[in-house]
């Protein structure tokens, strides 16, 4: 089932000195004559940072752009929720940062599972992103002298993170959204709100449009274009409980995958260490507390098992500041995966806190004593408020309770250096692609990547598609559109007709639990095998026992959810297969069979220094895929085992 076949992956990475590759590549890319640009029609799906920035930039260049947005307005896209900040190698604080250092940190942080060329480009354009956002009026935090403030974030040893209070994603997205709306006002972008893409249309091997559903009337619509850009975000919601917004889903990329786009590293998931713990079975999503909190908060659990005393009654000597103990040089700022795994270990060992025991403390007592409550309020005021609102505890007085939660997916559709998938004309941007973050993403680097893809990469690389290929005119009357529309109608009709007993959410919760337990932070062959069987069984039951009421010709949230869950179940199968085949610990995931004697993650470069790109090969009770491997070579950064001790 997973036998390697002939390589069809050409990364198109430029060669030569690393720091010149991007400019060399841009020079070598074919240009589209300015007068011709308006003849090319680009369809952008998703209006998060990647989609909005791409749509605005391409329209500014003169392309004809159509945008599909799942919400009532593009400003609500999931990126809006990012809190902590965005990296940029500006070196304003003069603390030793540089493009090279950001490049190096990202390759290393990703545990050597990303392409060096891509990462270097990302680090290069990071500085232009900050300039661009400031020019748009993004109100980044400033110092009294009027210059931009920076902070260190998530384990970085330099301060390269720009932020706008705890609402960095919101402000960056509003900047991109406003630029996009300017183009809408100018008539250069046609915006269709409340549209969900349900399938990709491929004509003669080239992506030429999509099928979407108008969510308020249920109308199934056809959109034709000369290029399709998917910027539909990550698939963390496969776990049901995650920090992602409720609409975030995999359908767009999953349908493209089933039309032939290869899926890269599907099992690479990031679990964020500082989220508010689950409080009950009604829990619908999890709330992240920005990890900037770890700059000042100290993580601890009681030294003895089952210590149920209230935290203020536990004396200093009976507290275990386990991160500071195990990792003296990084302390509370160890990377996300380590902080997450250690927290779970503490809870599994019976030393967790709170009602459920599935939490650890994040304590600000010492920081408040040191800096004063006012200073802490200035830094984290809105986060503390958010925490209190949800839990009814006041973190100025009582330590926060935190626990890891699924946060981000490094996996996604495989793309080459031009961000083009294995389907020509289908480009994938932002979290939806398999990304430059390798097996683990650094904090504050997703916003950077989304905007790099949208503002700076795609405007340059899309030209190679238009100038380099002969694209005949294709209208929505083409038989491929009719066929794809029939498929969509068939699926919608089937979901409505099952008339079973269980809701889509009910299936989704069960799926999420299997994934969290067996394909989350720590994975084992045994667990993954059992997960695979459970997931296949769940899929079979789903198609026999789902209940969706109402019709397809109206706003029908249960129908929407059911479609997404159907795709999540299929994706879960691939994630588990990918996790099972990768018998190494690396980046965000820990493979129990692959660890050092001290219990740290053990990477296996000899066997797994590649991107696993999966090609869908067939449906059935057990779905099948072919595995293609893109070998990763490291010319600039020396492979080392991560050590944060």
């Amino acid at each position, binding site marked *: 089932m997973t036998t390697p076949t002939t390589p069809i992956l050409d990364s198109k990475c430029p060669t030569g000195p690393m720091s010149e590759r991007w400019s060399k590549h841009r020079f070598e890319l074919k240009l589209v004559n300015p007068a011709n640009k308006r003849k090319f029609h680009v369809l952008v799906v998703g209006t998060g940072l990647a989609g909005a920035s791409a749509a605005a930039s391409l329209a500014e260049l003169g392309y004809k752009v159509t945008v599909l947005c799942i919400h009532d307005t593009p400003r*609500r896209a999931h990126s809006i929720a990012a809190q902590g900040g965005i990296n940029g190698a500006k070196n304003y604080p003069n603390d030793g940062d540089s493009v090279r250092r950001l490049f190096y940190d990202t390759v290393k942080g990703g545990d050597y599972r990303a392409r060096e060329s891509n990462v270097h480009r990302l680090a290069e354009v990071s500085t*232009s992103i900050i300039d661009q956002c400031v020019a748009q009026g993004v109100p980044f935090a400033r110092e009294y002298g009027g210059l931009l403030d920076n902070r260190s974030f998530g384990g970085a040893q330099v301060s390269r993170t720009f932020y*706008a209070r705890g609402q960095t994603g919101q402000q960056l997205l509003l900047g991109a*959204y406003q630029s996009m709306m300017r183009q809408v006002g*100018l008539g250069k972008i046609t915006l269709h709100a409340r549209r969900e893409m349900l399938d990709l249309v491929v004509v003669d091997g080239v992506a030429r449009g999509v099928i979407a559903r108008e969510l308020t009337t249920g109308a199934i619509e056809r959109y034709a274009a000369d290029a399709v850009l998917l910027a539909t975000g990550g698939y963390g919601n496969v776990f049901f409980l995650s920090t992602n*917004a409720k609409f975030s889903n995999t359908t767009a990329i999953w349908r493209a995958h089933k039309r032939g786009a290869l899926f890269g590293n599907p099992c690479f998931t990031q679990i964020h260490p500082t989220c508010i713990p689950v409080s009950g079975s009604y829990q619908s*999503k999890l709330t992240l507390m920005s990890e900037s909190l770890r700059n000042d908060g100290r993580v601890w659990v009681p030294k003895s098992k089952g210590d149920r005393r209230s935290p203020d009654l536990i004396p200093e000597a009976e507290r275990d500041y386990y991160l500071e103990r195990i990792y003296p040089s990084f302390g509370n700022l160890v990377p996300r995966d380590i902080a997450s795994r250690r927290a779970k270990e503490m809870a599994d060992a019976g030393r967790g806190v709170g009602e459920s025991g599935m939490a650890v403390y994040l304590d600000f007592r010492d920081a408040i004593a040191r800096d004063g409550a006012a200073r802490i309020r200035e830094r984290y005021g809105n986060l503390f408020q*958010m925490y209190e609102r949800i839990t*009814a505890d006041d973190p100025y007085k009582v330590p926060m309770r935190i626990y890891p939660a699924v946060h981000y997916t490094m996996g996604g559709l495989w793309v080459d250096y031009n961000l083009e998938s294995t389907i020509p004309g289908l480009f994938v941007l932002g979290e939806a692609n398999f990304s430059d973050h390798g097996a683990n993403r650094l904090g504050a680097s997703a916003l950077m990547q989304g905007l790099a893809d949208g503002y700076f990469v795609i405007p340059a690389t899309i030209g190679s598609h238009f100038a380099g290929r002969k694209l005949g005119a294709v209208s929505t009357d083409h038989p491929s559109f009719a066929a794809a529309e029939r498929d969509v109608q068939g699926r919608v009709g089937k979901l409505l007709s099952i008339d079973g007993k269980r809701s889509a959410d*009910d299936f989704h919760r069960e799926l999420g639990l299997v994934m969290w337990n067996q394909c989350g932070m720590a994975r084992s062959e045994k667990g993954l095998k059992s997960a695979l069987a459970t997931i296949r069984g769940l899929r079979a039951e789903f198609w026999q026992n789902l209940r969706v009421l109402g019709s397809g010709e109206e706003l029908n949230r249960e129908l929407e959810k059911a479609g997404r869950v159907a795709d999540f179940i299929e994706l879960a199968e691939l994630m588990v297969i990918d996790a099972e085949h990768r018998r190494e610990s690396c980046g965000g995931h820990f493979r129990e069979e692959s660890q050092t004697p001290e219990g740290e993650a053990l990477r296996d470069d000899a066997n797994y220094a590649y991107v696993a790109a999966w090609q869908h090969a067939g449906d059935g009770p057990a779905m099948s895929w072919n595995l293609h491997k893109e070998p990763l070579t490291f010319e600039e950064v020396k492979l080392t085992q991560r050590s944060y001790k």
Partner: protein
Amino acid sequence: MSGGHDNHGGLNLTLHVWRQKNREAEGHFETYSLHGISEHCSFLEMLDQLNEQLLREGREPVAFDHDCREGICGSCSLVINGQAHGPDRETATCQLHMRRFHDGETIYIEPFRAKAFPIVRDLVCDRSAFDRIIARGGFVSVNTGSPQDANAIPIPKENADLAMDAAACIGCGACVAACPNAAAMLFVGAKISHLSLLPQGQPERRRRVLAMVEQMDKEGFGNCGNIYECEAACPKGISVENIARLNKEYLGASLTARPEKESAGGF
């Protein structure tokens, strides 16, 4: 099946929920009883449980807008017991928790209502009027390219902070829903303030305010009567100072307005 004494440690509630099939249909309240709701769950999680119950009973679930469920996307939009976003100050519907309600309580749940926000279904309304206002001028006209270095324009921290206060608006429309005149002054004032407080916003300052106000009027939003219900309902604490700033900007721009040659196509 009215709320009884079978309180297994949770809240028993009577809900009156606005049901409306689509834009054209007449709407009405329907009454539901819900039992054993944990006080720790959020208001929307309470509605999730209502929907699960309706689904089990073979009745169509209630449609409502939501996405982030953490008070930042601006999707959620309920009027709860007559108050946009419910009883808590500076709290969006999705951040409201059931500990705010008591056992046996009756809760009325309606959509945001305003002429400019037509109801799409049940509790979902159409707020695209806000997008059209932004498209007329709620931006800085700068193309992607290579602008000057980000630190080339120092901005006093006080101004940056004030701009950020205004930019925190989530575009939810509660200000409109709460206003007896369904005015959009707080929303528009917040964007005008954000951009006019910053040097980047200066070149287009006059055009911006004139165009955005013109669009606001076109969309059918009402006039501000200085009642300040908007500020009270706003989940982000956007201050009515922003309305004052909008009025000042508008007055200044109107006094010095020149007929704009290229404005016909809308910018």
